[in-house]
């Protein structure tokens, strides 16, 4: 399903949502809840083919192309990582491939979770975002060449 709002609008919505938490525990609990709300990824998509390598937590990412947009389905075996994955899916899924490829994704920084996206983190999240952008970039390039 393609929603009309932009990546930036969705990011702002998340930043406002997180503004009500002062305590780290409340923030983490909210992230865990978001993870629980993530659409179930079919068992066959938990295959190595869709696995994004992380050292400690695993992430699976499955892209579906819908016209010029990309829809993502994803999962993780760790609850906090899964919540962060849910945030990424919420922001990027259904957006035009070109917009995904170019998204700066500053919202994690604004909600104080930037460290989770660091490439040195072993949760696989940075690799997942990279993978999302690679898929989007490939589609955007294809569209450009087809005029």
């Amino acid at each position: 399903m393609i929603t009309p709002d932009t990546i930036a609008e969705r990011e702002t919505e998340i930043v406002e949502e997180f503004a009500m938490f002062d305590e780290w525990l409340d923030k983490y609990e909210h992230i865990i809840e978001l993870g629980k709300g993530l659409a179930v990824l079919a068992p066959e998509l938990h295959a190595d083919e869709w696995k994004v390598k992380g050292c400690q937590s695993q992430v699976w990412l499955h892209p579906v192309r819908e016209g010029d947009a990309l829809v993502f389905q994803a999962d993780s075996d760790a609850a906090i990582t899964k919540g962060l994955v849910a945030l990424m899916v919420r922001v990027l899924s259904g957006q035009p491939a070109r917009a995904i490829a170019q998204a700066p994704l500053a919202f994690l920084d604004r909600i104080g979770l930037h460290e989770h996206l660091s490439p040195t983190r072993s949760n696989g999240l940075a690799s997942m975002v990279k993978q999302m952008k690679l898929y989007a970039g490939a589609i955007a390039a294809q569209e450009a060449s087809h005029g």
Partner: protein
Amino acid sequence: MSVFSPEEIAAIRGRFPILSRVVNDKPLAYLDSAASSQVPEQVIEAMATFQRTTRANVHRGVHRLSQEATEVHEGLRDRIQRLLGASRREEVIFVRGTTEAINLVAWTFGRQKLNALDVVLAGELEHHANLVPWQIVAAERGARVEKIPALDDGTLDFEAYERLLDSLPVKIVAIQHVSNALGTIHPVERFVQAAKRRGVATLVDGAQSVPHMRLDVQALGCDFLAFSAHKMYGPTGLGFLYGRYELLESMPPWQGGGDMIDKVSFSGTTFHEPPWRFEAGTPHYVAPSGMNAALDFVEEIGMERIAAREHELLEYAQTRLREIEGLRILGSAPHKAGVVSFVLEGVHHYDAGLFLDQMGIAVRTGHHCAQPAMERYGVTGTIRASFAVFNTESEIDRLVAGVIRLQKVFQ
């Protein structure tokens, strides 16, 4: 009766500046000494003083600073010889750490010793550092690495080991003294002796044992033993390889460069005697001043008392953690070092690690560079708390409270 009085514990803690740090608004509870122990002020100070007053390259210079730096460097070699009970100082080789020590042996001795179809036996719980170098060299030589199977309690199956020794063309046994993942203290002398009786060479990974117990390489009978300074209240980037001199003498050099040669010319180069044959290039010459101070610290408190205190902490931690429902401790060997590894029902170790970090508690989570061990016990990773002489029961209480709190969030 505790090993130390509360005043003594406070005094020991006071010597580690990092322990006064606040992490995520909470006082730091550092329970990750199996990865890296912290350093007392005297180690930091010794290295700073060395940099201010003595810094110069070792072995080569005739000037005063170089002479003094060389004295510190070679003085440490004597001390490590005494620490390990080696028969001569030339049996101690300076390396970057345990990993480099094992690679050195694999790439020199291993390469020389292994032929097609030969076997290296390695324990099922080995750290990757004592497994992967052997796999790489074995593959090059057409040899292979087989495992000494582990039992459910975290010990190694000695009978299976003897059967493997008798049924396979085993040339080298690579075995850990203490498991970094589970804390098991293996009866390593039995394993070494069994290999020795059959003429098989042995390397002991002492990374988790040398900092926590007294040992003697001659009594142990091993051919090689490796350990790191950074797990023993010392600096990072420094480790030691003990090798029986007779073997070292027969081994080819590994890395080429300065300091390891006898005579160099384009028509051919001859190499220095051990240990210098294996010490190419400028070493981390600042670190020995710090390691000397770390050994002073250990001697001052006494290795027996350190070991007894860590055992006390282990017993306390295991007792308290066992009270928690849904928590399972991995490894119930009769002898364990100050390491407790556990899993929580329904909670991923990564989530647990993030939560504990928010509470100022530093533990290790994941596979601990021992994936075959994780596979053996059917987990992808564990939460590991490990202790040093500066830890306290109240830090363990905080860990227990933290675990109970995070269980509520995730269940």
